[in-house]
């Protein structure tokens, strides 16, 4: 439960920004995430739900439009920010998270272990520069600067718990009882 922009108390719809669609474990993981969302009083929406199936020259444009429509229909975002094919998160996931930030909607991410960036397994010299000459930030956060606009948790359920605490604070402030986690 949360209070939406129209002042209505309802379950928030969570955009599950992730790279699971590329993995064989996708269905299993999404099923688990949705169950956890339900536990915390959220409705989880997986971007791939209802993806276009008809082939055609404009197929990928239609997939983009489809995912973007899902984003616009959500109240908040929880993003999977684990490393993807190297030391960076999935760029599509980061993009989606950024859109929620711009819209002023609650934005959360999870990174397994929540290790500060400087302590991550990135090859660097004694001055903190990687082999391509890019410095590794040492700013008390698991990601580079702009990600501090996002609340980072160590796993999906912890991210839901963070969001729940924020929404409960909002509910209590407005005279409602906090949501009872199942």
């Amino acid at each position: 439960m949360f209070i939406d922009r129209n002042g209505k108390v309802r379950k928030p719809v969570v955009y599950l920004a992730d790279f699971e669609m590329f993995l064989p474990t996708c269905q299993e993981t999404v099923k688990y995430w949705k169950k956890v969302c339900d536990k915390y009083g959220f409705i989880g929406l997986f971007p791939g739900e209802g993806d276009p199936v008809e082939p055609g020259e404009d197929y990928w444009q239609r997939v983009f439009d489809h995912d973007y429509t899902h984003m616009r229909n959500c109240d908040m975002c929880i993003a999977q920010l684990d490393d993807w094919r190297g030391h960076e998160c999935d760029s599509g996931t980061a993009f989606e998270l950024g859109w929620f930030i711009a819209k002023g909607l609650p934005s959360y991410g999870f990174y397994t272990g929540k290790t500060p960036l400087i302590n991550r397994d990135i090859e660097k010299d004694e001055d903190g520069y990687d082999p391509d000459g890019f410095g590794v930030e040492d700013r008390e956060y698991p990601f580079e600067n702009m990600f501090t606009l996002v609340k980072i948790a160590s796993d999906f359920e912890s991210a839901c718990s963070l969001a729940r605490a924020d929404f409960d604070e909002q509910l209590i402030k407005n005279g409602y009882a906090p949501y009872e986690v199942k």
Partner: protein
Amino acid sequence: MTKRKVYLSGPDRLKKNARDLFEQKKKLCEKYGFILTDYPEDLFELKGTLEENRTLAEKRLQMIEDCDVFIADVNDFRAYVEPFGETALEMGIAYGYDKKMYAYMKDARVCSLRYSGKKGYDEVSKSWRDADGIGFEPGPVNLMLEYSAKIIEGDLEAALRAAKEDEDVH
């Protein structure tokens, strides 16, 4: 005509000579009739407290909101066929603010062709997959990036040229 303000997104701010690079980029923007947004001095610092870190991010968020044109460096960064994560995040922010967006990369071939790790062709799905059996995005970058920005093969100057041409048309 008022000069349009450009926000540049990319990992160059992490380089040792970042200040010099930004001075060069400032001149390049001017050459094409744009103004590069003024950057906070601590943008080029690698160390800082979490509080300073957050303050800087808030300033940059405002800078993106205030710009007219957003240009991103989406070259691969510390990963196979993935750009700098912060830049992808900023592209999402810029799209949320309805900015005119450009993204440049040296090599704009599709991800499966650019991927230098082990890969194999899957006859069933008729597509390339990496050693873990994971497929690739259909374009040069992730779908969300590809369809939100004009992808330019080349460097910043090529992107500025494209932005200038679009301005002249309109």
